[in-house]
C-alpha cells in the first residue's frame, strides 16, 4: 500500500502543538521542592495510576522527612508487595522491596541487626493485613522499634481490584461482583490491641495531618503505626463509580457513599446496607504508650556487627 496520498491529506490537519510549549508558562520556573532531593530521578515517573492517593501520601512522607533529614543515609525503607510497597523504590535511601506480606519480618531482622538504623516499613492493606496480618500483630507485640505506614485503599490495586480485608461491606470489587459480604478490619485498633505503642490514622486528603503523625511516629521509640486512608482511582473508584481522583479525594472529607447510588440496586446481598457509606473513622493519634522496645529488651547496642 502506498501512503503518499494519505500523507498529503494527513498533513492538511492543523500543525500539532509541541507538548513542550503547550500552555506557554511565561514565568521563570520555581526550584524543585525540598523533598524532591530524596527522589531517585532515574526511576521516575512512578508506576502508580493517575490520581492514585498513594502518590499524595508518598510525597507527604518525603516532605515530612525533608523537615528532619538532609540525607536519608541512616534510614532504611522496607516494603512488601503491592501498589503502596512500590513507592519505597523511588526513595534515595537504603530501600528493600521484599515479598508479599513479609516486610515486617525483614524489617525486624534488619532492626535487630543494626539497631542504629531507623527503619520505616511501607505496606498496604492487603500486604499488611491479609497475607501479612500475622507478622503485623507480632511486630506490634514485640514492640520492634520501627515505623510502619499502612496505605489503606480498601482494595488490591496491583492485581486488578480484588476484595481486600479492608473493603467495606457492600462495595463492589472484581472478586465481590455482588457486593462485599465480609466485615473489614479496623487496622489501627487491631494493631493497638496487639501491643503497638503509637497508633495514628490519617487521610491522603489531609496531607499536613499525615505529615504530623508520620513525624511523631518516626520520633516514637517502639512500634509506631500510621494507617493512612488513600484512594484507588482505577479500581475502587471506577468499579463503584465514584468519579475521578479529585472526586475521591473530596469524598474522603465528606464521608460519602462508597458506591454510586445507581449501582446499589445491583446488589444481591440482603444483609448489607443498600448504599454503603465509608465509616466515619477517627483520625489523628489513637493510642500512645511506652514500654521497652525489642532491641532494648534484648540489650542490643547500636554498634552494629
Amino acid at each position, binding site marked *: 500500500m502506498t501512503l503518499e496520498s494519505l500523507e498529503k491529506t494527513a498533513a492538511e490537519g492543523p500543525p500539532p502543538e509541541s507538548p513542550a510549549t503547550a500552555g506557554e508558562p511565561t514565568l521563570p520556573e520555581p526550584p524543585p521542592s525540598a523533598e524532591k532531593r530524596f527522589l*531517585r530521578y*532515574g*526511576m521516575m515517573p512512578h508506576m502508580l495510576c493517575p490520581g492514585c492517593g498513594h502518590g499524595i501520601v508518598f510525597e507527604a512522607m518525603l516532605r515530612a522527612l525533608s523537615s528532619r533529614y538532609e*540525607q*536519608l*543515609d*541512616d534510614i*532504611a525503607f*522496607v516494603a512488601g508487595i503491592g501498589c503502596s510497597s512500590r513507592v*519505597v*523504590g523511588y526513595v*534515595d*535511601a*537504603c*530501600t*528493600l*522491596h*521484599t*515479598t508479599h506480606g*513479609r516486610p*515486617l*519480618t*525483614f*524489617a*525486624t*531482622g*534488619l*532492626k*535487630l*541487626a*543494626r539497631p*542504629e*538504623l531507623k527503619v520505616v516499613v511501607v505496606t498496604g492493606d492487603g500486604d499488611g493485613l491479609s497475607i501479612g496480618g*500475622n*507478622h503485623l500483630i*507480632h511486630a506490634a507485640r514485640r514492640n520492634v522499634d520501627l515505623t510502619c505506614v499502612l496505605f489503606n485503599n480498601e482494595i488490591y490495586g496491583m492485581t486488578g481490584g480484588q476484595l481486600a480485608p479492608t473493603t467495606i461491606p457492600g462495595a463492589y470489587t472484581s472478586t465481590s461482583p455482588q457486593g462485599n459480604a465480609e466485615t473489614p478490619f479496623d487496622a489501627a485498633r487491631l494493631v493497638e490491641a496487639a501491643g503497638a505503642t503509637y497508633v495514628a490514622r490519617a487521610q491522603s486528603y489531609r496531607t499536613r495531618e499525615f505529615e504530623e503523625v508520620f513525624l511523631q511516629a518516626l520520633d516514637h521509640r517502639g512500634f509506631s503505626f500510621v494507617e493512612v486512608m488513600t484512594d484507588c482511582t482505577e479500581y475502587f473508584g471506577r468499579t463503584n463509580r465514584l468519579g475521578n481522583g479529585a472526586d475521591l479525594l473530596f469524598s474522603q472529607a465528606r464521608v460519602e457513599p462508597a458506591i454510586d447510588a445507581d449501582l446499589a440496586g445491583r446488589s444481591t446481598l440482603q444483609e448489607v446496607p443498600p448504599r454503603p457509606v465509608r465509616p466515619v473513622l477517627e483520625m489523628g493519634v489513637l493510642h500512645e504508650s511506652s514500654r521497652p522496645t525489642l532491641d532494648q529488651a*534484648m*540489650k*542490643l*547496642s547500636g*554498634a*552494629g*556487627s
Partner: protein
Amino acid sequence: MSQQLIQGNEACARGALAAGCSFFAGYPISPSSEIAELLARELPPRGSVFIQMEDEIASMGAVLGASLGGRRAMTATSGPGFTLMQEHLGYASLAEIPCVVIDVMRGGPSTGLPTSPAQGDVMQARWGSHGDRATIALAPGSVQEVYSLTIEAFRLAETLRTPVAVLYDEVIGHMREGVELREPTPDELGRRTSPRTAFSPTFLPYAPDENGVAMVPDFGRGYRFHVTGLMHDERGYPTSDNAKVAELLERLERKLEPAVAAVPPERYRLDDASVVLIAYGIVARTARAAVDVLRREGIRAGLLRTRLLWPLPAAALTEVSRSAELVVVAEMNRGQWALEVERLAGDTTVLSPYLKAGGSVITAEELAGHVRRLTREGVAVS
C-alpha cells in the same frame, strides 16, 4: 586437639558460631529444634541476636533483613518449614543476600514422619522456589562434617552472596559422635563480597565482580541503593528488559560454579570399580560399609560420596557413572538424585537405584544384597 562427644544439631550450632554467625531467627520444628535452643543460649551473651519468629516465613525474612544489615545470619528447620521458606530463598537468590539454612530432613510429604530420617528434600532444595533458581546445597555425612560443612556453608554464602542450604537427616541431627571443633582459619571463613568504591550517585550495587558476584553493600554503611525481588538491572532498579533478565539469570547460575571445586566428592575404592555406589549423607556411611562387604565377596565395588548436592557435581558423576558397568544411587527417597545421575550416565552403564523412603536408614546389608542380586543376574561382571 581433643574430640568432644556432641550431637549433630549441636555440631551445627557450634559450626555456625565458629563461622561468625551473629544472627539466628527460627521457629521450633522437629528434628531441628536443638540448633535453635543452643544458639538461644550462646548468641545473646556474645552481643548477637537470637529471635524466635512467628513462623518460618518470618524467620527467613528476618534472616535476610539481618544479612542485609551486615550480619552472618542463619535459620534451621525441617521439611515443612523449609517449604514455607522457599519464597524467601528465591528472594535471597535473586537479590543476592547471603544466608544459611539448615534443613534437618524428616519423612514427608506434609507433617509426615517428624522424628524419622529421610532424604526427601533434595529436589525441594533445588526446585522448591519458583523460577530457575540456582542454589547451593551441602550434605554432611557425619557429626564432624555437620560442623565443618556449616562453616563451609557460611563461607560459600558470604563469598558468593547466595543462600546455602545444609541438608542432613534426623539420624545425623540427633546422633552423637566425637567431633574435633577446630577453629576455622580466615580463609575458611571467607569474606562477604562488597563494593570497592565509595558511594556516588552512579553507584551500581548489582554490578558483578570478576567472579560474577554482585558487590552489594550492607545497609547503613553510607550506600543508598535498592534491593528488590523483581528482576533488576545493575542499579538494582526493576527491569523487564528481556536481555538483562536473561543475563542476570545466567550470571546467578554461573557464579555458583566455584562451589563444585570447593566441596569435592570423596572417592572410595573407585580405581578399579565396576560397580559404583553413589550416596550422600547418612546413606554414604552404610554404602561405604556395603562396598567393603562386596569387595570381600570379590565384587569390585566402589563409592562416590558427594557432600555437595547442588550445584550438581556433574563432572565427577559423569566420570564415575560412565566408567562403571553398574551404578547404584542409594538414597532415602523415591529417587530424586538418581534422576540426575540417570541424565549423566552413558548408554553402556546399567543404572539400578536403591531407594528407601519408609523412615529408616538404608543398611549396608540391604545395599550389598541389592548389588549382589544384580551381579548374580549378570548385570555386572565382578
